[in-house]
């Protein structure tokens, strides 16, 4: 177990390095100069040079990358001023400072992450609530009316673009019927000036959750239906029936657990991926989450913020991968962690 965790953490570190290096390289392949943008349109060459030095973009990519790693690690050379380094020591890990707004990237990420997390976890609960009953029922009654209706839903859910679904929902339920707000986000815990608290939070997220969940629910219905049908044909399900178990018990203790094994993996990976930013849904509903922030930072060539979100998303994937493995081992005795 310990050995397993150590190995996993080492791999996680390698993955982290690979992802950040690739992001850095991509950023520098793009022919744009952040210093130019920072210094403004009427800046002289001298201004731009100064801005470059200030941002650190005058140095080669590998130096910038090493500086990025140094800022991020809890032990390293302490930066006294931008580009100036003092001695070695322990320090607060930092993702750096935004090129464009000079905000601490840590703050930006930690402000945006709860918004995305609210969207993703709420959405995941919603899509599981939709897809598990529908998927299982369609598997039990293939070609029934409900099964056919579910397949139409799946087809629409998979084919329709999330932006389109979001806009339709916003138009019908937000604009025409006026049941839910079209945009905006309310903090669940700290009430702001105009709204806050769990009720406002959930009310504002209803449409985003729905739009976000429809796409996944469609995929999950299809997967759960297929898995359940497969499991229903397993020999041990026949054994359970031969023992005289009623259908409900057969389903509960012999079919569901086996058929949902794969779904656990899917769920973990989808949540992890979405935590990096549900870009479409956040953009449509104006939620200040990681996806929207990432989009804005890329448009502004604001590397530190982009990197901050990449780091966060990578960590989310690594952590959820580990959780999935642990959960999987807990529910499937055939899997041993070593």
């Amino acid at each position, binding site marked *: 177990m310990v050995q397993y965790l150590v190995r996993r953490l080492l791999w996680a570190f390698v993955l982290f390095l690979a992802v950040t290096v690739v992001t850095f390289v991509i950023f520098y392949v793009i022919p744009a100069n952040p210093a130019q943008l920072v210094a403004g349109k009427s800046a002289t060459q001298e201004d731009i040079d100064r801005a470059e030095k200030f941002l650190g973009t005058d140095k080669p990519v590998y130096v910038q990358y090493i500086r990025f790693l140094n800022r991020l690690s809890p032990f390293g050379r302490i930066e006294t001023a931008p580009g100036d380094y003092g001695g070695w020591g322990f320090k607060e890990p930092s993702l750096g400072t935004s090129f464009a707004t000079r905000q601490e990237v840590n703050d930006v990420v930690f402000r945006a992450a709860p918004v995305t997390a609210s969207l993703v976890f709420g959405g995941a609960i919603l899509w599981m609530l939709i897809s598990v009953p529908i998927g299982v029922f369609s598997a039990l009654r*293939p070609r029934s009316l409900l099964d056919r209706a579910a397949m139409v839903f799946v087809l629409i859910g998979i084919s329709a673009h999330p932006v389109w679904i979001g806009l339709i929902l916003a138009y019908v339920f937000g604009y025409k019927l006026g049941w839910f707000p079209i945009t905006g986000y309310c903090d669940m815990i700290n009430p702001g000036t105009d709204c806050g608290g769990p009720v406002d939070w959930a009310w504002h997220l209803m449409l985003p959750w729905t739009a976000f969940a429809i796409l996944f629910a469609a995929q999950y219905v299809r997967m759960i239906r297929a898995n359940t049908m497969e499991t229903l044909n*397993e*020999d*041990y399900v*026949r*054994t*359970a*029936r*031969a*023992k*005289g*178990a*009623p259908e409900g*018990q057969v389903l509960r*203790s*012999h079919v569901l*657990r*086996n058929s949902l094994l794969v779904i656990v993996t899917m769920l973990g990976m989808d949540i992890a991926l979405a935590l990096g930013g549900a870009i479409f849904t956040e953009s449509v509903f104006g939620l200040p989450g990681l996806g929207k922030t990432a989009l804005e930072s890329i448009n502004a060539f604001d590397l530190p913020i982009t990197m901050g979100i990449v780091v966060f998303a990578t960590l989310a994937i690594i952590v959820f991968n580990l959780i999935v493995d642990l959960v999987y081992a807990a*529910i*499937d*005795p*055939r899997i041993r962690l070593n």
Partner: protein
Amino acid sequence: MPLLQVTELRTSFRTDDGVVKAVDGVSFSIEKGKTLGIVGESGCGKSVTMLTVMGLNNRRITTSSGEAIFKGDDLLSMKPARLREIRGDDIAMIFQDPMTSLNPVHTIGRQLVEAIQLHRDVTRKQARARALELLKAVGIPRAERRVEDYPHQFSGGMRQRVMIAMALINDPDLLIADEPTTALDVTTQAQILELMNRLQREFGSAIIIITHDLGVVAETADEVVVMYAARVVEKAPVHNLFNRPHMPYTWGLLGSLPRLDADTERLTQIPGQPPSLLNPPRGCRFNPRCPYVMSVCREKEPELTPISNDPTHLQACHLDEQTKDREAAKLLSGTMAEAS
């Protein structure tokens, strides 16, 4: 009155290609405490016959007719809830592949306890004690510890023992064993058969053993039903069947057994394939593969009738008895002399 009396059983499946008549007018019966062997090639309907009796076919695509009277009640027409009470309690079943017949995510203890608690109003503790008792009876070493293990921690033979324990746990009157040894290696096969014979003496259950292996039948059965293409073609007490087989298909099965007393390069086989049950041949269903085929065989399906001097021996073949006696004797002078 026999324990189970199956009469004119018919089962058909609706498939994309058409209606498959998997069982077409099968009748047999079994007495208390006896063993009946059902023999035939793969796809001849022997498993489906017993799955139909147990009500375990996929209900959405299956239609069945006929009767299966078990202790006075017809299993085919009774309410599903009543049939569930009988399944696993009065009639238990063992399946072919022990590797896939146990649920991989539950301990075997839990699966055995479930089998008891479905039918008996006992505490968990009592159920566990009974489970342990059965695991010991089927010869699982260190049963106290192994009861907490999962199926993947057992070998194939051990899993089949667990399946047998699970089937016998409620003292069934009838045990249906569907190819119980097919998936096992030869030495394990012998152990499992011996175990089943011993447990039958201890528990007094009647056994219906479905197999394509005549050796298994010779070793276990009192009576044998030979099935071909969804129908019964011969039915006789085991001794009579091996001594005086009456149907060319049975001869083919017997002739294809490996022999210890002769140096044969290749085993004899029945030429051709079993017919498709979507569209079985006219007349006798075995006629396209039968070396003794006559014109009447292509026209008229032979009835299952007793042979002249033995009312317990039924067969369905148009050949005259002299020819049959001669051919059976020819066959037996070789292969089956020592088996009978």
